């Protein structure tokens, strides 16, 4: 080994063993971020904070929650909510954070789409991010089952039932997933395992990958300018902070993150204390009853848009049953955004306001997803069914048209 003569108990000795100063420079004071950014760039740190809130509040819930169909509901709604000191606060924080994290994920994701932050070397950041979205979705779904209320049970029953669709039924896939014929105690405990252990581990590993894939291509900026990081870093270190186009992660970038975080926490805790029903649906305060279907079953708001694509096709087409078409579109919808870097055929990285046709495409996508979300909550009867049908069709068309739209912009600009 490389023998270190300095004592373990000295500053130099510790520095030689751990290279703390070098680590601090690489990760913080000389990790360069573009200066031309807006508050949307803070969403990553807001997400990390929300995830930390979920883990910490989750740890406290874990002390008292009982993963047993006979005990779960009361362990949450009596013991945690009414007996444990500040148990209600941890539960409210956990439920509201689980919902708000998806709002921030969507803002973060669409910021990336708007500024082209998935292109030309940043594909891995995008892919690891989309995998995080999928894993967070599974985490949210498994977590929602745990209080064992009416919505917990019936959402689990309806979604696991999807795996009985068509030819999948013969494989006994639904019974295998559930660990029984119907959603039962074995289903609850295995989703508890997923929610508390396996999926958080996967998420943490994906976050590490996400951060790693970010370093080499560097963070994007508002004008999507290609910056010479070495040159700009030199300017900054030479003392020319105002002229440099970059800022160090610590303290400059993080100081803006903290300021945005301050505002975010006011918004988040306002919801925790005053307005939490959107995240803790009242229907879930009825204990699970396998013999009584609630009048309205719907997933949490962040799943509504893809849930609506499942219900969108409500009549048979092209020789396929409506249910099967819906299932295929629903499957596609989960992974759809993964392919965005590869169907964008514009070779330049530019913000959407510099890509006129893509700009329109982007805002149609936002509005379409909003329509799908709202109609995903409403009963699919009458006119609602038709709105869902057309909104689903628009969703598919948006993906199909992206290569052409992006190519057209590039051609008009003279880049292709």
């Amino acid at each position, binding site marked *: 080994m490389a023998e270190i003569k300095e004592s373990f108990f000295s500053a130099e000795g510790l520095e030689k063993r751990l290279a703390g100063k070098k680590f601090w420079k690489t990760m913080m004071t000389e990790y360069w971020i573009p200066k031309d950014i807006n508050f949307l760039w803070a969403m990553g740190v807001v997400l990390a904070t929300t995830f930390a809130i979920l883990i910490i509040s989750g740890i406290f819930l874990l002390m008292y929650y009982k993963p047993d169909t006979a005990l779960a509901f009361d362990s949450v709604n009596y013991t945690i909510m009414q007996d444990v000191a500040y148990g209600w606060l941890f539960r409210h924080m956990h439920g509201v954070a689980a919902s708000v994290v998806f709002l921030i994920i969507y803002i973060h994701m669409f910021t990336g789409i708007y500024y082209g932050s998935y292109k030309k070397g940043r594909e891995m950041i995008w892919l690891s991010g989309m995998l995080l979205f999928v894993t967070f979705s599974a985490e949210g779904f498994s977590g929602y089952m745990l209080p064992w209320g009416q919505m917990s049970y019936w959402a689990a029953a309806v979604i696991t039932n999807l795996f009985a669709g068509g030819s999948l039924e013969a494989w006994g896939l639904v019974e295998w997933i559930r660990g029984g014929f119907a959603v039962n105690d074995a289903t609850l405990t295995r989703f508890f395992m997923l929610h508390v252990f396996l999926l958080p581990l996967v998420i943490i590993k994906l976050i590490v990958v996400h951060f790693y894939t970010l370093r080499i291509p560097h963070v994007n900026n508002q004008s999507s300018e290609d910056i010479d990081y070495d040159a700009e870093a030199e300017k900054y270190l030479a003392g020319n902070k105002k002229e440099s186009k970059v800022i160090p992660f610590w303290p400059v970038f993080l100081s803006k993150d903290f300021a945005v975080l301050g505002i975010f926490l006011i918004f988040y805790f306002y919801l925790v204390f005053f307005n939490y029903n959107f995240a803790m649906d009242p229907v879930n305060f009825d204990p699970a009853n396998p013999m009584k279907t609630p009048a309205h*079953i719907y997933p949490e708001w962040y799943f509504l848009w893809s849930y609506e694509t499942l219900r969108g096709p409500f009549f048979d087409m092209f020789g396929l049953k409506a249910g099967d078409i819906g299932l295929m579109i629903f499957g596609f919808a989960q992974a759809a955004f993964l392919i965005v870097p590869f169907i964008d055929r514009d070779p330049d990285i530019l913000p959407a306001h510099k890509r006129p046709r893509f700009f329109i495409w982007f805002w149609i996508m936002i509005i379409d997803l909003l329509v799908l979300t709202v109609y995903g909550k409403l*009963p699919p009867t009458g006119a609602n069914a038709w709105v869902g049908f057309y909104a689903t069709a628009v969703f598919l068309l948006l993906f199909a048209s992206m290569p052409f739209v992006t190519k057209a912009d590039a051609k008009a600009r003279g880049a292709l």
Partner: protein
Amino acid sequence: MSDKTNRRDFLGMSFAAVAAVGGAASLVGMKQAWDPLPSVLAAGFTTIDLAKIDLVPGKPQTFTWRGKPIFVLEKTADMEKFDGDLVIGDKRYTVSIGLCTHLGCIPAWKKDKWKCACHGGEFNSNGQQVFGPPPKPLNIPPFSVKGTVLTLGEEGEQSKAMMTARA
């Protein structure tokens, strides 16, 4: 020289193959750990004695089999005679799994048919879908009949024939 290379490759590849076999075997074992427990599978039989359950014609009762609701309806004189009925003596019964074939909600009996609150699907007293999104009639659980006793969970002649008649 080439001898040594081949032997090293061969040994390396064989080692990788052995490791892969071990890994695959572990995965099979892990898959099986997710299977429904034997006790759950064994509890899959339920008996119903039609003579002893005080069925009122036109008012179906709900039983549980494998966690699913089972609708048992004794038909009234006005309800149509149907090929798919379970006939025992002079009584005609409709036996169905009480899960809407659209997305699995439990329909409620409203006077003369089953209505599903989730998306408005309707099933008549034969269990056939007559309105709304359900694509198929109510499913029939596998069952066998001895006298007036139904055993749900084992397939008998009648349950197979009934499903065909309903379609």
